[in-house]
């Protein structure tokens, strides 16, 4: 190739790159760009879509306005890949000028995104990446990773204990007698989430004197569970407890559990992550235990019907519902910042987060899922767990809707043991 042509080709490549870099727009005076993360592409894009829809509704509720600022959402696609997630965040911060971020899904993506937020000193709120690695990183270098201000979901261990307590309460209350003694089998998807959640369940049951007869993990996209279920059947545990975040996997598990003829109580944590689960599982989900917040209040019901009519699918409380609330909380933080400092800058927002959110002064009570979203110096980056605050009740499904069976003070119905 002649040198001239090489130069032409090189220039073409360079200009392609430069064009890619173009379109950098600074922030105009009264525009505030809010980064909203989520797995918009990749294997769990369904969750990403719920995030996007719910966040849009939360923004519409305030008419995209906080004071005289116009709020523009910037969608930060984490694509279920730490490399892509961190790149998308950096691009959103530098290229598109977001000054605050909220929501995310995977813990591994969160770990890769944390230093990016820290480097640019852009506070990021309420990532749902929940496992301990996020907490570890947060605590390791709070000067940098502390810009990953607060998680939207506590570590699974903190959430998982009610299952054991609930079963114990059913036994004590006489509504349940274990068929095969205090035996439990554990199952779960082979992911960070699956391992940490089932680990917590296992610990809880063990501490209550139960025997774990087996634990089985499967790939997140596995839809043939007959081997596991038949094995469980031969081991005769009274309870089988586990989790999966993938609806196709979860629905196959529950349907096949019925097909195989298991007579154990089935704890399927995360069945309600997808609002439409009943269309996939059907009556096989009757009697299944799960821990899900519910769309209980009239405001929540209103949200559900609006969501359904606009986006054509059933929202899930834990994805769309929580995303709606956490976005609302973000807007509240913005409002508070504006009131306190008069302008919305990353720095001011960070200060509000540090001084008011972490201390528990600033809480959010206008949500549709939880009574109050609150943090405390002891809990951060996790939200405060407990009655009246962030809590997932244990619910039992019948006909596609869940009813709270535990804790007793909020229960809507009694636990029904499978026949």
């Amino acid at each position, binding site marked *: *190739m002649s040198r001239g042509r090489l130069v032409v080709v090189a220039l073409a*490549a360079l200009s392609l*790159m430069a064009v890619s870099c173009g379109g950098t727009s600074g922030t105009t005076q009264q525009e505030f760009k809010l980064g909203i993360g989520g797995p918009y592409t990749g294997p769990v894009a369904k969750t990403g879509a719920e995030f996007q829809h719910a966040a849009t509704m939360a923004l519409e509720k305030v008419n995209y306005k906080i004071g005289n600022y116009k709020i523009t959402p910037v*969608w930060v696609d984490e694509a279920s890949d730490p490399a892509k997630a961190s*790149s998308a965040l950096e691009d959103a911060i530098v290229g598109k000028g977001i000054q605050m971020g909220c929501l995310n899904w995977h813990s591994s993506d969160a770990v890769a995104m944390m230093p990016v937020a820290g480097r640019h000193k852009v506070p990021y709120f309420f990532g749902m990446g929940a496992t301990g690695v996020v907490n570890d990183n947060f605590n390791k270098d709070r000067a940098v990773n502390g810009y990953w201000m607060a998680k939207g979901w506590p570590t699974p261990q903190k959430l998982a204990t009610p299952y054991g307590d609930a079963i114990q309460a059913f036994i004590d209350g006489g509504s349940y007698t274990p068929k095969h003694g205090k035996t439990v089998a554990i199952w779960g998807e082979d992911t960070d989430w699956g391992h940490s959640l089932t680990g917590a369940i296992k610990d809880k049951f063990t501490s209550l004197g139960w025997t774990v007869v087996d634990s089985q993990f499967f790939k997140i996209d596995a839809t043939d569970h007959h081997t596991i279920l038949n094995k469980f059947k031969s081991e005769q545990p009274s309870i089988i407890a586990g989790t999966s975040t993938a609806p196709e996997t979860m629905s196959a598990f529950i349907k096949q559990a019925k097909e195989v003829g298991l007579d154990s109580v089935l704890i399927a944590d995360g069945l309600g992550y997808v609002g439409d689960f009943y269309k996939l599982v059907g009556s096989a989900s009757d009697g299944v235990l799960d821990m899900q917040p519910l769309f209980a209040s009239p405001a929540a019901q209103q949200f559900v019907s609006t969501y359904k009519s606009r986006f054509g699918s059933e929202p899930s409380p834990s994805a769309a519902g929580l995303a709606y609330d956490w976005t609302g909380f973000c807007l509240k933080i913005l409002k508070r910042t504006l009131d306190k400092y008069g302008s919305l800058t990353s720095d001011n927002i960070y200060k509000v987060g540090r001084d008011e959110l972490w201390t528990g002064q600033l809480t959010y009570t206008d949500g549709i899922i939880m009574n109050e979203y609150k943090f405390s110096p002891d809990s951060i980056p996790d939200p405060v767990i407990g009655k009246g605050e962030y809590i997932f009740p244990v619910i039992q499904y019948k006909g596609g809707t869940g009813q709270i069976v535990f804790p007793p003070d909020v229960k809507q119905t009694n636990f029904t043991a499978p026949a």
Partner: protein
Amino acid sequence: MTAFLWRRRGLGVALLALAVLPLVPPFDAENFRRWLVISALLAGWAIAFDFTAGYINVVNFGFAAFAGAGGYASALVTIHYGLPIWVSMFAGVILAGILGFLTGVLTLRFRGIYAAVAAWFLGLALLGITRNVSPITRGPLGLIVPTFFSTDSNLPYYYVVLAMMLVTYLVLKAVTESRAGLAFRAIGQNMEAARASGVNPTRYRILNFTLSCMFAGWLGAFYAHYYAILTPDVMATSQTVQVLVAAYLGGRGSLWGPAAAAFPLVFSTEWLRSNLDRFPGLDLVVYGLALILVMVYYPGGFAELVHAIRDRRLRLPGLRMRTAAAPQPGEAGAVLSDVRE
């Protein structure tokens, strides 16, 4: 060596440009510097991938698994033995090299698609093992990895990965221009003729696999210490596909072609991802279509385009004729007795 470098003055110019690029607008913004880091990393991987695909004509479809294994080894050595990252990276090189060697041995008898798929399955098995030996790797929970710098800029990372890419290129290029490189091309282009000419395909194929995987693992270690998190998904097929796309768009058998393709590829896909965020997935549709179009209409890729033009010049008689005094026909006796003793 001087000659080796002089022949690479084009490379020098390109390198200088790449070194200066993150300092000039618009590339000096952090997000573009990150894109440059991603590009250089992908370029390095694409070079190592092409070293196998473009020379011995075996597509290592398990490539990401070897790169990931290197990352894990380096991360674990840093975490458990507290060695400096620069040192522990070589643990990654060694582990990936050993795995590459074993893969080379296991897939020795396969050609073409069988070799590709065998490497793919080995990579998937490796991924599965990484996921399952969670006491060591923390499995899907993810391993938090110490980073190179505690700096708040991508710039030092960029120069590190650029240097690593350059070393990868220079070493592998030197190998391909050596005696071994001749053997690689021979067994890649015609196994029968290569063997009839005395090339031992076994030895060179294993050598090639080992070297390629060593560099893949080295760059994998960079990945680990840059993103600070490792999950078994770094070994997934989709990661191999990214490297493969860069290598095929760049053109096989040149090493520089894939590297050159990586930069515009990363920039255009990241740009699409960033600007078409209203249509999640559209960027990937464009990217897939581009791959299909190039493969259908110009399967040789970018390097082939350059080669085609250069080769036409090569074939013109008279041009580039060597000037050394040539022996004349008829001196056969002399030639061949030299040959024999």
